[in-house]
């Protein structure tokens, strides 16, 4: 159901642009206004999200320890899975963010006969890596449209990405890899009954938007060629805040631009915020040193509890009869003594 909705949405996006640009000629709306609005929605939205998270304190040091703690000097500890100081936390976070460490642990449970088996299952990790890194490189590649002259690094990246020299212009490897990643992420949601059960429209929508983005990009590069000089003129004018839409850029470009705009605008309101959220996750970004260093909870209130002396009053007889010491320093005992003396 969710997948169908997401598909309809994405098809609607294409239609809207086709009608808006191709038929009604609203180039300025689709070429300037929507991209600007989307970009600033993304920027402000993401900053807002991080501030919102940061406003809630971290009352407790709830590290999830996945390795040996630091205790006795001769016990071999695991600084990456049970970091003891902030440097080790940074390393753990680096592994988490850059290499998806926790996903790499993934197992798949199976029932064989009357046995439960947990085998290594790294496919999700592999395709997640493919997807995210391809996306990242593609994003970097696009900076050639937003800088003049194009930095050497970006040029180099382009050449590297196209080093197979297939077709003209050369086909980018990351284009294929991101499609592979997307396809895996999509198909597993449909193929695994558990995944299908938990998947929402908001899980399919970003996948489809990125599909739309990638496919429109590939189409534009290899099939419906657009006026690249015009495109760069537009993107540079956006960068310089003096927007101008040159004539004659193909509609397919505006479809591409609309998909990235939609994605940016959608980002801060969706699960895609995991991109920044992962940095704030308290089970990962704290040191497991809570017995050595006191963690402060800003809203901590002193505990209200029954003190020993109050407790001793209640169980006074039992304590005496069972030969347990009475704490004479308790004010209640002094009063008791005084009362006994008065009798």
């Amino acid at each position, binding site marked *: *159901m*969710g997948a169908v*909705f997401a598909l309809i949405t994405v098809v609607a996006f294409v239609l809207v642009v086709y009608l808006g640009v191709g038929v009604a000629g609203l180039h300025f709306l689709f070429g300037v206004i929507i991209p600007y609005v989307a970009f600033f929605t993304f920027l402000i939205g993401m900053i807002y999200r991080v501030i919102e*998270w*940061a406003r*809630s304190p*971290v*009352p*407790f040091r*709830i590290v*999830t*320890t*996945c*390795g*040996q*703690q630091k*205790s*006795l000097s*001769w016990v071999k500890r695991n600084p990456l899975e049970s970091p003891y100081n902030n440097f080790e936390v940074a390393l753990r976070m680096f592994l988490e963010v850059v290499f*998806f460490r*926790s996903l790499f642990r993934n*197992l798949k449970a199976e029932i064989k006969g*009357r046995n*439960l088996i*947990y085998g290594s299952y790294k496919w*999700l990790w592999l395709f*997640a890596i493919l997807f995210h890194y391809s996306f990242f490189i593609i994003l970097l590649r696009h900076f050639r449209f937003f800088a003049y002259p194009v930095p050497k690094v970006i040029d180099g990246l382009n050449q590297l990405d196209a080093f197979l020299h297939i077709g003209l212009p050369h086909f980018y490897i990351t284009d294929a890899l991101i499609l592979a990643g997307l396809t895996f992420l999509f198909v597993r949601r449909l193929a*695994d*009954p*558990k*995944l299908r*059960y*938990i998947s*929402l*429209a*908001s899980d399919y929508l970003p996948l489809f938007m990125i599909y739309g983005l990638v496919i429109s990009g590939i189409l534009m590069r290899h099939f419906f060629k657009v006026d690249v000089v015009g495109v760069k003129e537009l993107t540079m004018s956006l960068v310089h805040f003096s927007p101008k839409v040159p004539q004659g850029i193909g509609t397919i470009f505006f479809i591409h631009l609309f998909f990235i705009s939609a994605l940016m605008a959608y980002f801060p*309101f*969706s*699960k895609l*915020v*995991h991109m920044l959220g992962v940095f704030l*996750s*308290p*089970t990962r970004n704290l040191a497991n040193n*809570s*017995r*050595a*260093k006191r*963690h402060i909870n800003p*809203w901590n209130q002193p*505990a209200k*509890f*029954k003190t*020993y002396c109050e*407790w001793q009053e209640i*169980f006074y007889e039992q*304590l005496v*009869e069972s030969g347990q*010491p009475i*704490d004479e320093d308790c004010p209640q005992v002094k009063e008791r003594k005084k009362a006994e003396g008065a009798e």
Partner: protein
Amino acid sequence: MAKLPKPEELFDSIDWTPPETDWMDTPVEFQPGRWCYPAKKKVVEDLGFPNPREWSPADEDWKIPSNWREIVLEGMKERLEKYRSFKLFMDICVRCGACADKCHYFLGSGDPKNMPVLRAELMRSIYKGEFTLPGKIFGRLAGARKLTEEVIKEWFYYYYQCSECRRCSVFCPYGIDTCEVTMMGRELLHLLGININWILEPVRNCVYIGNHLGLQPHTVKENIEYLCWDIEEVTGLKIQPSFNRKGAEILFVAPSGDYFADPGIYTFMGYLVLFEYLGLDYTLSTYASEGGNFGLFTSHEMMQKINAKIYHEAERLGVKFIIGGECGHMWRVKHQYMDTVNGPAPSNLEVPKSPITGTVFEHAKSTKMIHICEFTADLIAHGKLELDPSRNDKYVVTFHDSCNPSRGMGFFEEPRFILKHVCNNFYDMPENTIREKTFCCGSGSGLNTDEFMDMRMRGGLPRANAVEYVHKKHGVNMLACICAIDRAALSTLMQYWVPEVGVCGVHELVANALVFPDEKTGKKKRTLDLRQQPLKPEDEENV
């Protein structure tokens, strides 16, 4: 209480295929053996919790206050502002499903709402529907729904089908910890007077009497004295531990289960025998007579309240540091919460330093509290204990990593180091079922009650199945653990799934292996273990 199916029947009934209907359209069905009895009215009253009344989850009407919606939404808002974990975990899940088959309750029951992702989604959908704009606009498409009484019932059912074991959080790429969600769920339910007796009654007992079991000070002392007589039967030692003694060097705190019920009592006897061997200057407290903390399963405030007496007593007695016994959730509190909620430690406490080896426990320099396994491992490493591991030769031992020390402390090597020195036959269970990937006993977080037996046996299956594996492969017949709930829960679990395997604490085996000077010289001879069974099988001579 529901009748439990035979183990084979239960195993074969497991089906991980979700139903046809969408989870939002699948109403919660209260299956027998899968929910716990509500807290008694009196218990709720005593604790000053809201809405004490007679009710049952089986009833249609749960008699919740008429303004329940405001109460819950206000409670959620407050907690979103107080806990970054809660807020973040509501926002960043991508439903990748990596956690889905990591939960022991899901693996054993196949109930899709026991997949951690969906358990959290029960709460997340309300967060979206009531607190976020996209959720309010797009509703179901964004995974949002409105808060209804049905949702409250669903929360009760599933947040008391989570043992807060945190196994899912190991696998989550963003470290989302279902335990945090379950804790919030339970706190919110408390606001409406929805709670379970198996947790709240121990909490009441702990608050008013001093321990979960409600043993009064004279009974605590008596129980421990009984254990001392048993120790004398076995070892000939006359042990007289001190109670509430001012000026002792060390305060020793254990979970109350250890001096109350089989097989925990043997672990407690183990502690006492070890301390006697060392001539340790320690005292027990009948006031701080509970190391465990069912407050952790109730609310953060209650956890803090119950734990406060540990430092309070340590201060009153003027001890130098605290040693804690073998207990799982107790150590999550002591390690991750105590300093924050009850600290800083009283000024009379010093950085723990072993009086026997001189080792300074730097990693506990702020809390001033160490785990008995850290203490003992250090002794063994320094050669301070004369051990005869062959005394445990009738046991082929494996070790169950308890959830909390594993994923809340990183406590893996210390108990293994001890076990490898006190017994000759030790085999770990398969790699993916131990250490940080360990499976819950199925009864953690206050769910080890009889009426919950169906779910306990299902949730415990992944653990039991791994035990069965090493039982068949290596002849394992003893499951050692460092948790009082485990000692009770795993015993029942083993009886059901792998009846050939017993359960013990690590220090029971330590005491069995410990050779006293008189025993070394041959003046005395040990023929019995702490359970008063022959040390060696009957066909062999006991030497």
